[in-house]
């Protein structure tokens, strides 16, 4: 590693430790949160192992024949990759992390632990129900499951249970915050608790779309109750959920970046008010943006697409706030650690802490993810990149870097905290975050370029017959990136296993939950930044205005007339 910790010119300001960390998790709570992390980490390890297979295929190294009878095709692997990483890993991690930030932030146990326990088991039952058809190759429909591709009913049922389970845990969080507020009138809600609970609220609104899609169309269809579907209406339902889904992934990373990372670098949250404002803005503008995934769809008038383009630009705004506030919080900490210069202070950040390094690298990649995202959102610019490999190139910088790398980094303190151990080999953990960074830079850049050249997404380009010679160099680069990422995944699995199964250490050596103070006392943050009601009303109103007319039109004129493909369209 070329980065080194610079010696401190002055001691880091030490907040009163007990005051910050006033509630110790009970063993039961640790086990409960740990169970979420266990599922999440197993999912991401299996799901990520599928990724390099796809990247290798691009340059002609087809390993799928060796994987039979487990994996029948590129597409079954791709379905596993998407479902396990983007749906299972994220959801289980986020709900587990929200349990932790709720309990540690509010310094109290859950109001009704039984609700959260039920939620967890419903999610887990859903995961198993979904996994069986995917593994038996009867749901090779990718994680967007666009009808009239038809999966086994268990696939749809399982996904429904995962979502319903997350709703149930969400109710557990809301009740806990409510109970805390009753005990602490007038006190601003602690940032890390509020941030993730706002995310839970946004998720409940956003998932209404996919719930309606599955319950009114796909599940009855796969059960044979109805014979045909309306694929365009299904797309509108799906993307009602599909884009806010990415903010559901992102906001817990933001909770860490705003509310925890500053503490890890010896700084403070630069602006408590703006941090909260960003989360509320996400609650309002995350959902009514889905038509930007349907810019080139038939069946949706350009005017509505254009309105959603404007709203998608608005959802970029809270991320611009985040860029300033988070970087300023880091700079504040770095300068306290003796950092100097216009940019030299960056080296004073504790890069030797893998949890910090991972989140910093995630943030760097996210800047480029944001640039790509703004491009995707730009209405007609979507004609250039829609359904090209640019899109997976983009979201490997966002969900697979900003989000996943941050989550990995968080587990570097969270797993030892929950297991009462020390992180096994911080050096290997640093290798993991840096290989992820380097691998993703190479992979994602090649995918973006291929997309601009016209390469389609979700396609085994190694076997495609139309690939021109000028793509080959970039296809090779995706494979090289994939190989580096494979190393990173294996190292991550090893470090996690050794940490989880490691020897118990003295409690003083176990990492604490980092909770950052803010520069300005949170009690000075206006009360309207601590109230759900105005923001929920705003979210509902905007949703009705921005989605209502077109959604009602599509439901009113619903044509259940697409039978799909006779037989199984994917390789068996």
């Amino acid at each position, binding site marked *: 590693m070329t980065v080194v910790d610079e010696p401190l010119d002055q001691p880091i300001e030490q907040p009163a430790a007990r005051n910050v960390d006033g509630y110790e998790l009970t063993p039961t709570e640790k086990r409960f949160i740990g169970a979420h992390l266990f599922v999440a980490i197993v999912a991401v390890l299996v799901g990520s192992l599928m990724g390099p297979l796809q990247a290798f295929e691009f340059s002609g190294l087809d390993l799928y024949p060796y994987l039979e009878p487990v994996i029948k095709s590129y597409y079954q692997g791709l379905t596993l990759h998407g479902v396990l990483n983007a749906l299972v890993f994220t959801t289980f991690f986020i709900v587990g992390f929200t349990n932790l930030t709720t309990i540690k932030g509010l310094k109290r146990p859950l109001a009704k632990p039984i609700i959260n326990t039920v939620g967890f088991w419903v999610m887990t039952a859903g995961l198993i129900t979904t996994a069986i058809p995917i593994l038996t190759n009867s749901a090779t429909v990718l994680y967007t499951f666009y009808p009239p591709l038809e999966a086994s009913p268990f696939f749809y049922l399982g996904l429904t249970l995962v979502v319903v389970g997350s709703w149930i845990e969400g109710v557990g969080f809301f009740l806990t915050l409510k109970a805390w507020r009753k005990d602490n009138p007038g006190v601003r809600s602690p940032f890390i608790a509020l941030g993730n609970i706002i995310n839970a609220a946004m998720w409940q609104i956003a998932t209404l779309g996919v719930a309606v899609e599955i319950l009114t169309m796909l599940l009855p269809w796969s059960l044979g109750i109805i014979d045909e579907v309306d694929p365009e209406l299904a797309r509108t339902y799906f993307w009602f959920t599909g884009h806010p889904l990415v903010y559901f992934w992102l906001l817990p990373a933001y909770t860490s970046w705003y509310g925890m990372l500053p503490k890890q670098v010896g700084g403070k949250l630069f602006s408590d008010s703006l941090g909260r404002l960003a989360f509320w803005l996400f609650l309002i503008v995350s959902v009514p943006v889905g038509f930007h995934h349907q810019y080139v769809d038939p069946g949706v008038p350009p005017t509505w697409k254009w309105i959603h383009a404007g709203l998608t630009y608005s959802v970029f705004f809270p991320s611009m706030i985040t860029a300033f506030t988070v970087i300023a919080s880091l700079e504040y900490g770095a300068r306290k650690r003796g950092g100097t210069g216009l940019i030299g202070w960056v080296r004073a950040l504790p890069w030797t802490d893998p949890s910090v390094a991972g989140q910093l690298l995630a943030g760097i990649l996210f800047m480029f993810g944001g640039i790509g995202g703004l491009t995707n959102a730009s209405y007609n*610019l979507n004609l250039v990149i829609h359904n090209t490999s640019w899109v997976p190139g983009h979201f490997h910088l966002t969900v697979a870097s900003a989000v996943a790398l941050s989550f990995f980094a968080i587990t570097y303190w969270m797993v030892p905290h929950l297991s009462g151990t020390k992180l096994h080999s911080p050096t290997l953990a640093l290798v993991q975050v840096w290989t992820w960074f380097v691998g993703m830079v190479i992979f994602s850049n090649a995918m973006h370029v291929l997309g601009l050249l016209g390469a389609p997404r979700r396609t085994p380009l190694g076997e495609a017959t139309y690939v021109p010679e000028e793509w080959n160099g970039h296809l090779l680069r995706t494979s090289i990136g994939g190989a580096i990422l494979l190393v990173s995944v294996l190292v991550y699995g090893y470090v996690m296993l050794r940490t989880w199964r490691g020897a118990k250490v003295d409690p003083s050596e176990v990492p604490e939950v980092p909770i950052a103070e803010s520069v300005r006392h949170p009690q000075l943050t206006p009360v309207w930044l601590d109230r759900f009601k105005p923001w929920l009303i705003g979210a509902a109103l905007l949703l009705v205005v921005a989605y209502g007319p077109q959604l009602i039109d599509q439901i009113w004129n619903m044509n259940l007339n697409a039978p799909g493909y006779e037989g199984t369209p994917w390789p068996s």
Partner: protein
Amino acid sequence: MSDDPGPSPEGDAHEHFKPVGTLFILVMFVAALILLWASVYVILISRGVTV
């Protein structure tokens, strides 16, 4: 009383801390953003109208 230049509730550190490095990084970010966004815009324009 509100004009009293006494100890600020925001603390001394904030008084003296100007996020100059933050601004520098963000200026570079915006430059990259405009450059990369514009390069896709140029591709769009060069590929011809769709009406």
